[in-house]
């Protein structure tokens, strides 16, 4: 696993529609045992495509806001 922040997938909200798997430009997500899994966490660039395209808001990419 990586220490970097990763998308958080809410399995209660997720309908396993697969949109995030298809949209991820780094192919970091997979459907595994009927659930979305971040199969390649190191590949994730935190681009936000999965969160932006999830139709049920099941993916969270969290940010802290601060002065540089």
């Amino acid at each position: 696993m990586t220490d970097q922040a990763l998308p958080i997938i809410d399995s209660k909200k997720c309908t396993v529609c697969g949109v995030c798997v298809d949209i991820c430009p780094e192919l970091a997500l997979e459907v595994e045992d009927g659930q979305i899994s971040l199969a390649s966490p190191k590949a994730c660039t935190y681009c936000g495509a999965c969160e932006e395209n999830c139709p049920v808001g099941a993916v969270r990419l969290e940010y802290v806001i601060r002065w540089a």
Partner: protein
Amino acid sequence: MVIWQGDPCESVFFVISGEVEIFKLSPAGREQILDRMAAGRWFNLVPALIVDAKNQANVRTLIESRLLSISRSDFTRLLVEVPAFGLAVNRYFAQRLAHMTNLVESLSLYTVRQRLAQFLISQADAGGSGGTVRWTQSDIANRLGTVRDVLGRALRRMADEGMLRIEREKILLVDREKLQRAADGDE
């Protein structure tokens, strides 16, 4: 979930620890976050003081939280019998009224770009002392009364203009002067 909008009001709540989020839902399911409340804050006071009132918003915990629940009848009795408690609750109402007035002003008078700049400055200046400091772009959109893709475009535009950098897990504000001008609509 702590309470649902539209259910009969049975209690007022005090946040002992943790954090809750107050939000409303439109018939289409769109959220408007009204506020987040950390330790020391009350919620559900308004319907508790109106006869047969219903909860006016939804409340959910954001992290593991301890809440004190006081029934409507006990709350009313405390207000009548303990003047210092009544005064504290009145002061609290005054603060809430000021907050809601600011929210109405923000939603009705300012563009998404202005609201976003104001929000970013206030969050960065608060430095995370106000409870949860982790926001998703959807959270910010709900807070500002807009939708995720509009918020995403506004953020990217600010990044392109050198006001901020979006990094993994961080929105880093770079240029206070430019952000303040965006917040003031003075560009």
